[in-house]
C-alpha cells in the first residue's frame, strides 16, 4: 500500500515537473522576443510578424511577406492560412499580430475593438466549364442561376443542360463576398459546397454544366471566366470598379493596441507605394 502511494506521488511530482518545465520555457521565450521588440523598435529590427487568416489572400500575403523578409533579414514573417473568421478571432485573442480577412469587418466585430485597413481589392470570377458556350451574363442572371430560378443553360443562351451550381462553404470569404454583391445571401441553391478555391475550380473543370465562383487570381486556363454585364474580369476592370463582383482584402488590427516594432514595419510596408506592384503581381489590385 505504502509503495503504491509512493509511486503515485512520484508520478505526480514528475508530471508537475514536466508542466513547470514547459511553461517556464515558454515564459522565457516570450520574454526574449518582447525584449528584442522593446529595445530595437525600428532600424535593424529583429523579431517576428505573425499573420493569420483568409486563405484567399495567400498569394498576395505570400508575395508581400517574401519581399518584406528580403528587405528585413532579421525579421521572421509567418502566415497561417486559417480563414477570415479564424484570423479575426486570432487578432481578438492576441494570437497573431495582424489578421487577414477577405471581407469587411462586421459591425459587431468593429464594436469589439478591431480596426480594418483595406489592403487591396480582389475580383471574384464567375467560372464555367470551357466547353460551355455562354460567355456573358448579367448580374441578375447570375443571381437567378445561383438561387435556382434559372435551372437550364438554354434559358440564358447556352446549350441544353441542367445547371450545376458549385459554391463554397458557409463562412467562406469568397462566398460571403459573392452572395453580398449579387444579393443572394442565404438563398443560393448549391449542388455542392466545397471547402477550397482549388476544389471549386477542379469540380467546374470536370463538369460541363457547372458554374462556380473563385478568386480571380486563382483562375487558370482549365476553366472559363465569363464576363459580367459585358465587362470581362481583369485587373484593370476591378481597379476602375467596372467589374462589379469584387471584394476587399483587409488587414485587421486591434484598435488602441500598438503593434510590435516588426509588425508595424510590415504594416507600413504592405500599405506603401512599393507594395502596389507586388500586390498586382499576385493578381489582386492594391487599394492605394
Amino acid at each position: 500500500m505504502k509503495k503504491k502511494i509512493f509511486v503515485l506521488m512520484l508520478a505526480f511530482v514528475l508530471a508537475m515537473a514536466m508542466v513547470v518545465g514547459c511553461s517556464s520555457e515558454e515564459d522565457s521565450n516570450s520574454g526574449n522576443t518582447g525584449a528584442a521588440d522593446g529595445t530595437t523598435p525600428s532600424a535593424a529590427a529583429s523579431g517576428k510578424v505573425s499573420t493569420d487568416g483568409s486563405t484567399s489572400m495567400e498569394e498576395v500575403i505570400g508575395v508581400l511577406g517574401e519581399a518584406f523578409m528580403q528587405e528585413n533579414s532579421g525579421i521572421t514573417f509567418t502566415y497561417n492560412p486559417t480563414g477570415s473568421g479564424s484570423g479575426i478571432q486570432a487578432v481578438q485573442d492576441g494570437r497573431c499580430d495582424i489578421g487577414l480577412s477577405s471581407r469587411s469587418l462586421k459591425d459587431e466585430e468593429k464594436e469589439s475593438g478591431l480596426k480594418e485597413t483595406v489592403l487591396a481589392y480582389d475580383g471574384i470570377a464567375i467560372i464555367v466549364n470551357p466547353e460551355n458556350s455562354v460567355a456573358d451574363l448579367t448580374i441578375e442572371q447570375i443571381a437567378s442561376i445561383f438561387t435556382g430560378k434559372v435551372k437550364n443553360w438554354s434559358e440564358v443562351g447556352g446549350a441544353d443542360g441542367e445547371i450545376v451550381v458549385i459554391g463554397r462553404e458557409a463562412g467562406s470569404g469568397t462566398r460571403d463576398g459573392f452572395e453580398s454583391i449579387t444579393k443572394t445571401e442565404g438563398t443560393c441553391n448549391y449542388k455542392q459546397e466545397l471547402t477550397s478555391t482549388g476544389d471549386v475550380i477542379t469540380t467546374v473543370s470536370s463538369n460541363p454544366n457547372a458554374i462556380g465562383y473563385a478568386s480571380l487570381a486563382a483562375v487558370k486556363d482549365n476553366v472559363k471566366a465569363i464576363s459580367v454585364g459585358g465587362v470581362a474580369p481583369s485587373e484593370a476592370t476591378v481597379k476602375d470598379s467596372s467589374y462589379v463582383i469584387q471584394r476587399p482584402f483587409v488587414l485587421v488590427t486591434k484598435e488602441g493596441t500598438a503593434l510590435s516594432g516588426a509588425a508595424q514595419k510590415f504594416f507600413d510596408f504592405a500599405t506603401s507605394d512599393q507594395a502596389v506592384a507586388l500586390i498586382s503581381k499576385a493578381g489582386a489590385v492594391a487599394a492605394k
Partner: protein
Amino acid sequence: MKNKVFETIIHGVFLILGLITVGCVLLITVYLIISGIPAISKIGLFEFLFGTKWASTDAEPSYGILPFILTSIYGTAGAILLGVPVGFLTAVYLAKIAPAKIRTIVSNAVSLLAGIPSVVYGLVGMLVLIPGIRTLFDIPDGASLLAAIIVLAIMILPSIINVSITALEAVPKEYEDASLALGATPVETYFRVSVPAAKSGIAAAVVLGVGRAIGEAMAVMMVAGNVANMPSLFQSVRFLTTAVASEMSYSSGLQRQALFSIALVLFLFIMLINATLNFFLKRNKEE
C-alpha cells in the same frame, strides 16, 4: 534495496505514460462537453437535434442537424450493406479456402488498402467516381450520398476483413474436423460451423467498420458535395463529420459553438459504437 528504488521509479514513469492517454481522453471529453453545451442550450435540444434546416450564416440562422444525423446513419448503413458482404466473404475465403500463395497476395493487398490515406480515396473519388456516377446515371452532378457510400464501403473493407479473419482462425480445429467427419462438405462446414462459432468476432468487425465509416471526414468531404440536404441517394449531402470540418475554419460566434455541439453529438455516437464493440469483444472472450 537499490534495485527496489529503481523498480519503483520505472513503475512511476510507466504510470505517467499511461496517464497521458487517460488525460488526453478526459481533456477531449471535458472540452467537448463544455464547448458543446452552450449552443445546444441556446438553440434548444429538440430544435437542434430534430430541426431539418441548417443555415448557419443566414441573417436569421437556423441550426437543425437532423439532415447531418440521418446522412451519417444512412451513409454508414449503406457502406455496411455494400462492404460487409464483400469483406466477410473475402475473410472466409482467405481464412479457410484460399491456397497459401493467393492468400499472401490478397492479404498484402488488403493491408495496402488500409494504409492508403483518406485524402487519396477522396481525390480518386472526386476525379473518377463522381464523373462516373454522373454519366452512368445520367444526372447533372455525381457528388452524392451514393458516391460517399461507395468510398466508405471500400475504406472499411480492411478492418472488416482483418478482424473477421482473426475471429475465423480462432475457431478450434476440432469443431471443423468433427463436422467433416460427420460427412459435411467443406463449404457446409465453413458456413454452418466455423462462421457461427466466430460470430461475435465477426460482429465486432462490423461494429469496427461502422466506427470507421461514421468517423471519416476527409474522403467524404471531397465526394459528398456538402450541401445540408435531407439525405437521398443522388443528392448532395453533408455528414456530421463534414459539417464540423467544412465550416470550422471560417466560423464565428454561435455558428462555431454549434459546430462544437455537432462534434459532441458525433462523439456520443462513437462512444455508443465503442460500447457495443466492447460488449461483443467481452462476449467473445467469455465464450
